[in-house]
């Protein structure tokens, strides 16, 4: 009896020792991981002469100058302008993806029509398609339509379900909805449109939220497409406005640059705080890449 309690206690002793070690390793890893972000936040409050010269993480004389400069204006526009532009593009993309991908998801996942198989296979293949293959012709099309340097090339394609990944996500989700529900609706006299409206759409909510969150974050961060299509500062989004700093070599611009970087990351931080579980579970279940 005593011997067994002893071994038990010893085992639990090593277990808690291991647990401490585990937590130490994990905490150190987390600190390393968040260091760049913490560094960014503190640096954004440093005065110009400290930004590059000082090694200390904390600012010696914390100041809000960088922020007031950013709000005052970069390249003639206040940061609010860039913020608004980013918001228009991101919200437009979210609306487009949520609407068009749920429509396509319902069609592929439920309805029967000629050519569905081949079209579905093609849709799956386009998930892997590098955008560069269609980039130049798309640019030519939008150029001919006079839509370069407007937000249309960034929003319109989303309304045409070009993000195949989210179409696939919706299809997978629609397939989990019990068929009996739409059959009941059919018997009660609903056609496919009303079945979609009253049966599928309400149940599709989780997939729509996942699509919305990821579309927002990806569009908010997107640099490549916005770089190609937007070319006047009044149309610039936050990533492009940040890019303006890169072209300036003067060191005095570093402080405001980091202040604006922080501002650009805030919406993503908020999304992360609000939808953490949703985001991580979305990745885990559907293999979404962050």
């Amino acid at each position, binding site marked *: 009896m005593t011997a067994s309690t002893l071994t038990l206690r010893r085992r639990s002793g090593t277990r808690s020792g291991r647990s401490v070690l*585990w937590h130490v390793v994990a905490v150190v890893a987390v600190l390393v991981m968040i260091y760049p972000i913490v560094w960014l936040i503190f640096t954004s409050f440093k005065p110009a002469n400290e930004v590059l010269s000082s090694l200390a993480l904390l600012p010696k004389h914390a100041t809000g100058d960088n922020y007031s400069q950013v709000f005052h204006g970069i390249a003639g526009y206040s940061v609010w302008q860039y913020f608004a532009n980013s918001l228009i593009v991101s919200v437009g993309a979210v609306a487009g993806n949520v609407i068009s991908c749920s429509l396509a998801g319902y069609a592929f996942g439920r309805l029967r029509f000629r050519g569905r198989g081949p079209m579905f296979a093609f*849709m799956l293949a386009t998930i892997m398609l590098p955008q560069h293959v269609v980039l130049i012709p798309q640019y030519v099309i939008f150029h001919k339509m006079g839509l370069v340097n407007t937000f249309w090339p960034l929003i319109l394609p989303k309304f045409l379900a070009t993000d195949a990944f989210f179409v696939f996500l919706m299809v997978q989700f629609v397939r989990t909805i019990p068929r009996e529900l739409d059959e009941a609706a059919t018997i009660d006299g609903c056609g496919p449109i009303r079945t979609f409206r009253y049966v599928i759409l309400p149940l599709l909510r989780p997939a729509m939220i996942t699509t919305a969150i990821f579309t927002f974050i990806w569009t908010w961060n997107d640099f490549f497409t916005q770089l190609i299509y937007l070319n006047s500062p009044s149309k610039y989004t936050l990533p492009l406005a940040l890019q303006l700093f890169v072209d300036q070599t003067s060191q005095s611009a570093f402080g405001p640059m980091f202040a604006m970087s922080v501002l650009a990351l805030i919406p993503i931080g908020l999304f992360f705080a609000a939808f953490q579980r949703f985001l991580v579970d979305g990745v885990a279940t559907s293999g979404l890449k962050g």
Partner: protein
Amino acid sequence: MVSVLTRPAEVRAASGGQRRRRRRRGQASGYLFLSPWIIGAALLTIGPMAFSLYLSFTDYDLFTSPKWVGTQNYVRMFTQDDHYWDAVQVTVKYVVISVPLQLGLALAVALLLNQPRRARGFYRSAFYAPSLLGASVSVALVWRAMFGSGGTVARGLRGLGIHTGSWIDQPKYALLSLVALSIWQFGAPMVIFLAGLKQIPRDLYEAAAIDGAGPVRRFVSVTLPMLSPVLLFNLVLAIIHSFQAFTSAYVISNGRGGPSDSTLFYTLYLYQRGFTDFRMGYAAAMAWVLLVVIAVITAGVFRSARRWAFYAGEDQR
């Protein structure tokens, strides 16, 4: 509910004509719901693919009409363009170094987090966060400062007696700073690995332990084979992703791909050719080569996976 129960009789009673009409209505609404996708696929995917294939055989500057030049773009790319080969080398080096390191770290941390400990959820979220932030210009700017002259990295290493100077200004280190940024974003594959680990039945480990397998043996003989489909998925995704990396290199090198082409990612060079030099035929040819290379490599990975990826319930040949 009653209507569900009466359904089969009603359908049987429906005349052939009615049924056909219903099916036709189904057909029409199928195309109706799919119409945005069909328009998009035709006008923004299939059409453009065909057009860019055509453009790749032309000289085209967006303002004058394309001039047919045959295979000249491809010939020049492969035989005369040194920058092109620089871009290929840089990209391949980046993929070969960053993908295994990122996935290795992701797997290691996933194994760590798979142990029953308190606050696992918190750690999981904390490690995942960089995957959401990493693609942004903001973080690339942080990287530029931290790996630049007088940045945290150079100073920290100097403190350890290692003198590297600024990473981003030296050809031998610049790409490594981008690799570091890619590794920093190991959270997304980690979460996927973690989900995979949860799927492994516990009795396999118990059976292995009874057979006398130690932790290493259990990892090699149980965890790895059971996790191989997830590994395959992560591997394919990471490869496709890395081949198309752009933002970090653009920001770190002011869009130039320097110093001396050491961060000239394939997509960055494609951008320069197409959108700063307006040699769109050439850029289209580069895009098609990229597509073919990615397709061939992906197919190769899937082929090799037949030998190493294990699917439970399937016969092992």
